[in-house]
């Protein structure tokens, strides 16, 4: 199984040739990649903590506690805070990480003017868009990964909200309200 995975990976690498999307001899590539993974993991973690905290608080407010029995009961006519309000800034870390990733397009472009002017070589290559591709591919891919994570988390949070909230407390049009 592992051998097959390695074989497939090698085949894909050969086909895609990822080196075509990077800057030749770009030293900070690995550091950038590791920073990205770190920032992404941190943003996801913060997002989860933030959302779960806010959701728990909102959900708790639907109930009152009978201090004699210790049981929880729904308030009459209690309505859950809208999903959009619970969500709040939960995904902001991921958007910020995406923006930081995009700023690396400029950092990479400026790198081509350091030590030597390799920008001159990349600017006079006969392949159209080569310079942009090499400067922007990795930052754009990373920014896209952030947005995908943000979307997946949004779906996850929405599912949690819809499943864990008592039906009678749900206000209508929750999904639509996110985009308003």
């Amino acid at each position: 199984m592992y051998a097959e995975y390695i074989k497939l990976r090698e085949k894909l690498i050969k086909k895609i040739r990822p080196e075509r999307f990077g800057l030749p001899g770009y030293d900070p590539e690995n550091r950038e990649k590791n920073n990205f993974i770190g920032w992404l993991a941190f943003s996801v973690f913060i997002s989860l903590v933030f959302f779960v905290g806010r959701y728990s608080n909102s959900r708790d407010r639907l109930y009152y506690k009978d201090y004699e029995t210790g049981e929880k009961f729904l308030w009459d006519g209690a309505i859950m805070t809208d999903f959009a309000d619970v969500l709040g800034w939960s995904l902001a870390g991921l958007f910020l990480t995406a923006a930081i990733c995009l700023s690396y397009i400029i950092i990479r472009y400026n790198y081509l003017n350091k030590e030597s002017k390799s920008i001159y070589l990349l600017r006079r290559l006969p392949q159209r868009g080569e310079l942009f591709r090499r400067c922007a591919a990795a930052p754009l891919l990373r920014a896209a990964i952030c947005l995908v994570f943000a979307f997946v988390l949004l779906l996850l949070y929405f599912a949690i909200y819809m499943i864990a909230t008592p039906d009678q407390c749900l206000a209508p049009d929750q999904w639509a309200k996110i985009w308003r």
Partner: protein
Amino acid sequence: MIELKNVTKKYPGKTALKDVSLQLPRGEIVGLFGENGAGKTTFMKSILGFIRYDGEITLDGEPITTKNIAKISFATSEHSFFPNLSPAMHKAFYKEHFPTFSDKRFDGLMKFFELPPYRALKNFSTGQKNQFEVILALSQGADYILMDEPFAGNDVFNREDFYKVLLGILEPHETVILSTHLIEEVSDFVGRAILIREGKIVGDVSTSDLEDQNMSLMDYVKQTYNYRADRVIRALSQITDEEG
């Protein structure tokens, strides 16, 4: 042929090229001479499309775009290679992007200059970096080879060797446009001299015409620039008189 028609380049507070019009046919070695800031680098960068300009520059009658840019190569004292890559890696990169890249010329010149093929260029001496920059420009398979002060930092023997190699390897269709301060040094190698001053072409002559007139290139340059031979003597006598 590269043709410039009324090319003007203005920077804030300075005009780097003023209404430059000239033709650079194939098969010439052209010397581009001028003092610092005269517009030599701007001239080359305009041809390569690195900067915006007013006017028109064509290559074999067509505007210079990604379609025909491979016909022009460029060597600069600022160096346009990737410092973390080795010559061997550059060879692979050039071969991938320039179909006319000449392995034979690259390998031959690498051997001639005794450059290590697998060491990162950032570890090369300035002279070696210059040599490699020029090797790349010559091996690209371009018809027009632009060189902007390519030997700044090389010793005289090195440069001398290089000129000889250059003359030996160039094909009849290849044109070299060499921007340099070293007028006397290249006077035997260039077939045409273009003088640029404050962004204007102030002289354009073939060395064979100069020979017919029994005039050296240096004399032509001095004449064109209105060089006053007595300037130094006057200045010295003035200084010594004042001190006396």
